[in-house]
């Protein structure tokens, strides 16, 4: 017997939790599925397990929302992967090696964001991880690097982690800012005014790092990680063309975040290129609905805007579904959406500035650089495929196997698109990302064989 719900939400981060709570309040039958063992997404990872004495205001808001979610006893399926969604919607789930199916009138994708894949020579060595991975370990495992860590990249998250690490007693060998020098981008006065607290916070992080005497290198490029079996040294060049070679045991990299649009794309949602943010996101209307009827997206998965904005867009999506299913009073829903829209505008005022300020550098990619970690495909092989007649990313995928491994193009999609589009004298906006096919997450032969045909 297939379970039936009115709204299935994928992702238990700020947007998913907010949507679940609001939808439940509006009387909808909701199921929230998430691949983590506990709610909170990435930003509030392990929030129920962490010692609250270190919490800041954002953490406290997160814990409050998680507790409210728990108290409402909303149907919640942790450690659950969504691996296929068929029209109707028939949502295929996988949890502890068991497959199940849920019928949902509407689906809300609140899958959040992921680090922008940023390949560089040696990036597959143990000892090289993302800043996000460092943050997750701090939150979910209460652990920090043993030896001084190098932090490379661009964007506020790298600064934030650096301050968190210092506060926890960790040591930083150096900050390598890869933001292209002379980035003359300034926020509009209106944006700056409404986002003053964010700006002040950012400046505060920089001050903390400088005060700790940590070397900061600017305009860093040609970063290489070297080592035999694991990282032992890094080399890089700064804005003044000075070359460095430094001992290193751990390097954390961060080049911004991009929306996780994998499932939306697979379902045929129209994807839009945001040039400021140099990334694709599903096209949504004022209610968060995509070009696929009944499919909604909220949170960073619809466009990077942070946790507070994600909560707002989660609520808006819940209202959108309510409207679709004729729940609640139309006038009330419209009025609430307008209030939320105002709050949204205030929260995202700085977005465009931050996006453009921290737009990733387009450093040249050597032929021998590994682009596809799963199938070991280099940039040179991708270029050869294009030269041999492959006219787009999907053909390149067919010829080289790039994007055919377990991650199904999540880690190599953007770099591959960039390399292919450059080779074709085109743009990533034109080239697009790999066509996504199910299963969105691997399932086993035995699990598939066990699916009963319910007609």
């Amino acid at each position, binding site marked *: 017997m297939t379970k039936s719900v009115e709204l299935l939400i994928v992702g238990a981060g700020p947007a998913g939790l907010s949507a679940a709570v609001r939808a439940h309040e509006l009387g909808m039958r909701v199921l929230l599925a998430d691949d983590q063992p506990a709610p909170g997404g990435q930003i509030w990872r392990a929030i129920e397990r962490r010692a609250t004495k270190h919490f800041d205001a954002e953490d406290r808001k997160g814990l409050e929302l998680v507790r409210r979610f728990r108290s409402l006893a909303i149907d919640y399926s942790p450690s659950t992967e969504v691996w296929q969604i068929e029209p109707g919607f028939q949502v295929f789930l996988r949890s502890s090696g068991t497959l199940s199916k849920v019928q949902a009138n509407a689906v809300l994708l609140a899958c959040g964001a992921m680090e922008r894949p940023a390949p560089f020579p040696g990036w597959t060595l143990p000892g090289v991880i993302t800043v996000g991975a460092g943050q997750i370990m701090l939150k979910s495992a209460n652990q920090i690097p043993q030896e001084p860590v190098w932090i490379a990249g661009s964007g506020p998250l790298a600064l934030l982690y650096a301050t968190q690490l210092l506060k926890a007693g960790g040591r930083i060998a150096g900050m390598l800012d890869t933001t292209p020098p002379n980035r003359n981008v300034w926020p509009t006065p209106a944006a700056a005014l409404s986002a003053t607290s964010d700006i002040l916070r950012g400046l505060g992080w920089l001050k903390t790092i400088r005060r700790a005497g940590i070397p900061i290198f600017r305009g860093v490029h040609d970063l290489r990680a070297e080592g035999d079996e694991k990282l032992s040294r890094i080399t890089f060049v700064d804005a003044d063309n000075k070359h460095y070679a430094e001992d290193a045991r751990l390097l954390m990299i961060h080049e911004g975040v991009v929306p996780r649009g994998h499932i939306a794309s697979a379902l045929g949602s129209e994807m839009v290129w945001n040039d400021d943010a140099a990334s694709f996101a599903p096209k949504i209307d004022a209610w968060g609905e995509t070009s696929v009827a009944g499919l909604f997206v909220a949170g960073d998965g619809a466009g990077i805007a942070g946790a507070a904005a994600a909560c707002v867009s989660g609520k808006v999506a819940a209202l959108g579904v309510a409207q679709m299913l004729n729940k609640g009073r139309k006038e009330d829903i419209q009025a609430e959406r307008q209030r939320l829209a105002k709050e949204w505008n205030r929260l995202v005022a700085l977005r465009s500035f931050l996006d453009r300020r921290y737009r990733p550098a387009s450093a040249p990619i050597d032929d021998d650089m590994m682009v596809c970690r799963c199938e070991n495909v280099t940039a040179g092989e991708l270029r050869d495929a294009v030269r041999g007649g492959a006219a787009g990313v999907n053909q390149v995928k067919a010829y080289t196997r790039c994007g055919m491994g377990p991650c199904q193009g999540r880690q190599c999609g953007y770099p591959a698109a960039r390399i292919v589009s450059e080779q074709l004298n085109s743009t990533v906006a034109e080239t697009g990302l790999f066509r996504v096919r199910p299963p969105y997450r691997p399932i086993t032969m035995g699990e598939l064989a066990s*699916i009963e045909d319910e007609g």
Partner: protein
Amino acid sequence: MDRIETDVLVIGGGLHGLSAALQIARRGKKVVLLERAHIGRHASGASAAGVRTLGRHFEDLDLSLEAKRYWSDMPALVGDDCGFHAHGQLRVAETSAGLPSLERRIRQMHDLGYRHEVLIGPEEIARIVPAMKREVTAAIWVADDGAADPHRTLKAFFNAAAASGVKILEREGVQAIERAGNDWLAVARTVRVLAHSIVNAAGAWSHQIAAMVGDHFELGTKASMMIVTERIEPFVAPVVSAVGRTLSFKQSDRGTLVIGGGLQGRYALDREWTEPSFAVLADGAKAACELFPGLEQLRINRVWSGLEAKTPDLLPVIDLSPTAPDVAHVFGFSGHGFQLVPAAGFAVADLVIDGKTPRAISGLKATRFADQAKAAE
């Protein structure tokens, strides 16, 4: 709009279009090939690339045996071996219930003078496919059938055709075809092509192209699905199918298991769109796990489905148009087209240039559906 004048226009950038274009160009004609999306976008790019004479219908068997000779020396034909490995094809009867159909087939083959299919027993099967469960009854075996790499094959035919002077234009879907004196004028997205002859190799959309020159065909569509697992150590050498199961099972030369055989997904022809049906795929997975114990923990990384044409008798049409002058049809391979590619190209070149061919396509006529309908009345 650019206007191109040529001798022969080939419509469709799949393997059959490329093969025909190649052979026509090699016989000295100017050829333009128009492809609506990109080379190998549909059936050819989604093929399991089985190189199979085993189990063929009599009507395309001789053409298939001719194609087999080319497959054994693809470098001579297109400058690349296309990843072809002759590890054999096997069709197994798991229980005695499946034996009569195998025996009947062997008798028919031998009566007609064919010896390439042989009947083998459990010991021989265990030697050839040690990974298969031991409880099987018999199998038909063709030792020098095998499988190739579909994308290497596409690349090889594309390169050979281009090297022979074929002008290949992608993103040029043909929207209309008109008569222009003794020639044909095809209107595509940004170009118009004036050609004396046309080859219709438009795959699942061949009936639409045929209609533009006045031919009517009832063409069905197949959206065959395939499961691709993670890579594993060498596990099975031949391509395996089983009586009574929709299953074709092989290991690619990258190590992935490719499990197909005609499991049908969902499709929308006008949108060039297919989608897998996991309820149907479950049957394929079950069949594979029953036939090959130990597969349960293998991870499935992806699943795909490709669009191809289906004719009422599952045999292709390789024939001149019954009504339109200087038009040749090569379509409707119904899931069995890959192996025929090298030979079909020669047959089409013969038809286009000589108006006839000595090759074995007499059972693949365009008019046979009308004939069959008449005979049925």
